[in-house]
């Protein structure tokens, strides 16, 4: 475990009423990496994600971000530390416009409270202008400018995924958690998504993603961690992991020799 890791997961475990979903998993994500958690369904990938994001409380272990423990059971406080996420099934604010969805992602960049908003104080209006500039920047970056004023629910699925990504990026996170970003996308959309994730990394955001689409993950990630039944099976470079007999067994469901 290197001392300077951006995200340091230490002995993280979760039991749901006696059932062990995740058993003492350790790993680190270095700043600037694209790292993937892969594994068959039920391996505990999403549970780990939800523990990092502060949605569920670990039974044991902890997560350090930039050397400090992350808040537990308070996802907004995790977001405030600079960690953004997307969901396995897209969760947009359907009756809000695309622009408004991205503006919600800018929430942490603003300070205006009830009174400031009700009376539209000068400070509030200046802040609002800044937030809108930021949101438009993100939309331009994703090529969604012409969709800005459409209700998010009316967009095709692939574009909804982009909007969700935009909402996550709007706050300027240092770490982006992507929960199965490729689910429901076709091969061409997969390729575009991979290019986008690389672009996110080049812009300075570290990426940790969960997926079980092997080709997509192997082509994209710097490092891969394989989970099986809540335990770390192996961790390393994509080309090494792909050849690991234990991994092949886990995926094909045969006993490892």
């Amino acid at each position: 475990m290197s001392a300077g890791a951006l995200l340091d997961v230490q002995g993280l475990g979760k039991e749901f009423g006696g059932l062990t979903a995740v058993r003492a998993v350790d790993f680190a994500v270095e700043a600037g990496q694209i790292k993937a958690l892969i594994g068959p369904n039920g391996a505990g990938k999403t549970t780990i994600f939800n523990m990092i994001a502060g949605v569920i409380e670990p039974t044991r272990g902890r997560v350090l971000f930039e050397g400090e423990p992350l808040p537990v059971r308070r996802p907004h406080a995790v977001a405030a530390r600079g960690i953004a996420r997307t969901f396995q099934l897209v969760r947009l604010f359907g009756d809000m416009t695309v622009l408004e969805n991205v503006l919600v992602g800018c929430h942490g960049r603003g300070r205006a409270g009830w009174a400031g908003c009700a009376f539209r104080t000068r400070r509030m209006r200046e802040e609002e202008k800044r937030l809108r500039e930021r949101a438009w920047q993100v939309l331009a970056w994703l090529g969604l400018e012409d969709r800005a004023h459409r209700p998010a629910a009316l967009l095709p699925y692939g574009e909804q995924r982009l909007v969700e990504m935009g909402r996550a990026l709007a706050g300027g996170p240092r770490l982006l958690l992507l929960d199965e970003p490729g689910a429901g996308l076709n091969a061409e959309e997969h390729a575009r998504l991979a290019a986008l994730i690389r672009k996110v990394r080049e812009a300075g955001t570290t990426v940790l993603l969960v997926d079980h689409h092997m080709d997509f993950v192997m082509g994209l990630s710097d490092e891969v961690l394989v989970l099986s039944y809540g335990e770390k099976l192996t961790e390393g470079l994509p080309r090494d992991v792909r050849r690991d007999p234990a991994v092949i067994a886990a995926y094909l469901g045969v006993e490892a020799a």
Partner: protein
Amino acid sequence: MTPGRRWALLAGAAVLIGGAGGMVRSTYVLGMLIFIALNGMAALGLSLVMGFAGQVSLGQAAFYAIGAYVSGVLTASYGWNGWLSMAAAVLAGAVAAFLVGLPVFRLSGLLLAMATLGFGIIVYYVLVNWSAVTGGPSGLTGIPPLALGGFRFDTDARMLWLAWGCLLAVLGLAGNVVDSRIGRALRALHGSPAAAEAAGVATTKLKLGVFAAAGATTALAGALYAHYLTFINPSPFGFAFSVELVVMVVLGGTASLWGGVLGAAIVVLLTEGIRALLPLLSASHAAAEYEIVVFGLVLMTFMILLPGGLAGLARRAA
């Protein structure tokens, strides 16, 4: 709606109300219009709580009472300036709601209904039993009407201007909130609490904020009520009024600014209509007993046919 259009709409409504105040002579009609404004303010607050925080309060009458009694006692017993006492009443309503909501919104489930039900009962008993301050069951008299310089809001027509002026101002401010960082966070919370949290919205704090804001607008309505009638006693601030406010919100529609006002108008008109019609239909003098039955039927019909309320219907038509 853009801020410009919203303010134009509010200004139009103000002109209309101003004209009505000048033309309508019947104190009966004026009184009804005033109560639509007061109840509308209270229902507006509750509709935001039900729409955005996703919980129902069964004790809004208590915040109405807090507004009425704080402003009433400060002016009648301590000689405060009416506007100052009204500001104190609004603050008291917000603080009371904040304190009630503080333990409630940390937990999940429909705890707010239970907590506010209890709070409503406590406030009612305090009003009845703390006679030295509240005047007990016989009430508090001698509350002065509000005045601006030499202009006293002591007739129904003048009170109509004040009540509707306050309602339109509240609507304007609430509209500003909807179109802002806080409003977007509220709508996000309504859409998906998990996604709102992930985007950095402190949803517990936000729900508490909505509830405190509702406490403030409800207390404002209560304070206006006290200075309008110049006499208050505990009986109108019981559980029945809390339920009536819930009915207004259900009829008008939640999470919409005009829904509460619409619902208040329907309930006030319906109550008067029932009072006028029922004695004609039944020989007995028990019309008041039937009132509640008719309310129940109307409420059920709305829940089945129009779950989004009248505001929801307008949205669908648009």
